[in-house]
């Protein structure tokens, strides 16, 4: 304690219940996601892999979400841009690289699915598909199971702004609202569904839809990861207290094309993209840590070197790794008896 009369500055992360170490860990995970994502794009452009889909500038809020959850008990239903989210849940760069290269050891799908289709039972990350929004009712179902079993688990599901127009969004939210289920619905509103800007998709605010389901809907600035952390943590507390679901709309912006198969200059301008790229919260959060005395230039240099080494290592491993043997390509359509093929 300081002397009475002096002003003690409490840093935001401390006020939110994040230790200095966790606040720094968040930054490292955000940066790891950024560099991984950049490498994925590079690999695709170099012709090493077929496809990459990016979440650049969405990572700070994704990581903040992960840090607000209970990794032992909660269920995670990410969507395809969530590298920051799944890295914060314990997935490794090596595992993500194995997915990018579609190799047999990929824990997400053994190289069966496109990259960005996450899944790992060990990490409580629920397998996902490509038809968007199907994961929303699944999250409701995970929350239902938690309620029926009296488990202190919360399901958190993410999806894009485009997905908020699907029936599964409304159906999943409504069911969860009726039964007051422990679930957090997170719309990562990056303002584009491929080429469709937000004004072509909805006239209202996505967070306001929660009103119709009878639970809180909160809009939060995606460029403020500490605020995202606070909102998700509060939603989680409400969920475990039996107070039901929360809809969170994270306002962000997709600075990359939809995927490596898309040319976004066909439907928007470079000026628009640059405007938003300048709002990237990664350097802002880095500066926050520096101002708090938790981060230095030397640490930054070391972090970049460490990340580079981690990504190089994962990249090299995955590139050399074997594909799933074709003899196994048709396995697991149904449960196998005695672990043998059908």
């Amino acid at each position, binding site marked *: 304690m300081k002397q009475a009369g002096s002003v003690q500055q409490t840093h935001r992360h401390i006020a939110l219940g994040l230790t200095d170490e966790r606040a720094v860990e968040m930054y490292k995970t955000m940066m790891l996601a950024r560099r991984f994502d950049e490498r994925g794009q590079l690999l695709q452009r170099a012709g090493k892999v077929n496809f990459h889909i990016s979440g650049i500038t969405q990572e700070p809020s994704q990581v903040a979400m992960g840090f607000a959850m209970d990794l032992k008990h909660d*269920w995670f239903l990410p969507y395809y841009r969530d590298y920051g989210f799944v890295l914060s849940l314990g997935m490794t760069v090596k595992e993500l690289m194995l997915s990018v290269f579609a190799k047999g050891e990929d824990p997400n799908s053994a190289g069966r699915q496109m990259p960005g289709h996450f899944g790992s039972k060990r990490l409580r990350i629920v*397998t996902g*598909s490509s038809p968007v929004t*199907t994961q929303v*009712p699944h999250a409701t*179902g995970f929350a239902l199971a938690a309620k029926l079993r009296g488990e202190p688990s919360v399901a958190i599901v993410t999806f894009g702004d485009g997905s908020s127009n699907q029936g*599964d969004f409304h159906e*999943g939210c409504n*069911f969860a609202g009726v039964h007051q289920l422990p679930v957090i619905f997170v719309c990562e509103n990056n303002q584009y569904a491929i080429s469709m800007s937000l004004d072509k998709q909805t006239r209202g605010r996505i967070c306001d839809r929660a009103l119709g389901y009878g639970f809180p809907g909160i809009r939060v600035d995606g460029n403020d990861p500490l605020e995202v952390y606070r909102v998700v943590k509060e939603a989680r507390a409400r969920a475990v207290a039996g107070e039901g679901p929360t809809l969170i709309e994270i306002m962000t912006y997709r600075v990359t094309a939809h995927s490596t198969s898309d040319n976004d200059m066909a439907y928007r301008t470079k000026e628009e993209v640059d405007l938003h790229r300048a709002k990237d919260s990664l350097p802002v959060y880095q500066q926050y840590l520096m101002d708090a005395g938790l981060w230095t230039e030397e640490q930054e240099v070391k972090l970049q070197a460490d990340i580079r080494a981690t990504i190089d290592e994962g990249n090299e491993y995955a590139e050399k790794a074997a594909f799933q043997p074709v003899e196994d390509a048709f396995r697991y359509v149904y449960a196998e008896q005695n672990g043998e093929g059908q």
Partner: protein
Amino acid sequence: MPVIEYIDAIRLAMKEEMERDNDVFVLGEDVGLKGGVFGTTKGLQLQFGDQRVIDAPLAESAIAGAAIGAAMAGMKPIAEMQYSDFMFPATNQIISEAAKIRYRSNNDWDCPIVIRAPIGGGVFGGLYHSQCTESVFFGTPGLKIVAPATAYDAKGLLKAAIRDPDPVIFFENKKCYRLISDDVPDDDYIVPIGKANVMREGSDITVIGYSMPLHFAMQAAEELSQEHGIEAHILDLRTIQPLDREGILEAVAKTGKVLIVHEDNKTGGVGAEVAAIIAEELLYELDAPIRRLCGPDVPAMPINPPGEKHYLLNKEKLKAAMLELAKY
């Protein structure tokens, strides 16, 4: 052994499995105090409470989707679709999700869900309360599909479906609910998924089918036996996915003449696949072309009584087709 109705056998299977396993629960529209629009779940909510017999909002994709999520979390949900006609909003969840969860995760995740859906006409339900929708789901790898014709099989197959580690669609025939009664043991038994059943032994013609039309075939077979001395061999597929190939081939080889019957329309129906299996394996053992007697290729049956009657199969239609085949 008590004789009970088909609908009671379905309810008994759910009741016994819910008593046996706390992870089993039911969700659907009107399944609670009302007991479902047909009464299939009557009494279950009183016995097990509203946490295990859940009245779900009217939204089929959420019923299937929430059940899929709960199944991935380790529960054993039974999702009721009020009519199979109304399950199309859930088709994406069933085909894109439930069917592919194990495969796409390389066996990391599984989806032990049961989806119950009433099929069939003859209840003046018109276009949208009468359809047989099995061909929409048939041919989707990852799904199992059963369609019992008897009360015994309804109980045994539903219990097998609930215990199965993969998604199973249970097509129950709404005309069978109160019309069909047979011996159903009180004790715990299952009917294995993937095994057809010989309903009647015969040496002249083979009839292969599933669900309600088999009862018309059985009635017709008795009359053909008495009136013409023709003995029909009748095979109930019971499971339509995966098909019991050996059972089909064995039944066809017995007579060399086969008639395939179902209420679902002919084109692209289960019968087309059964016919293809026979053609691939047994063409040169056939003594007659493969015949199919199915619902007509129109969108669905009309509600007006002559129209509905004209659409549906019955004993007379079966008898005529069976006699013609026998005489070939």
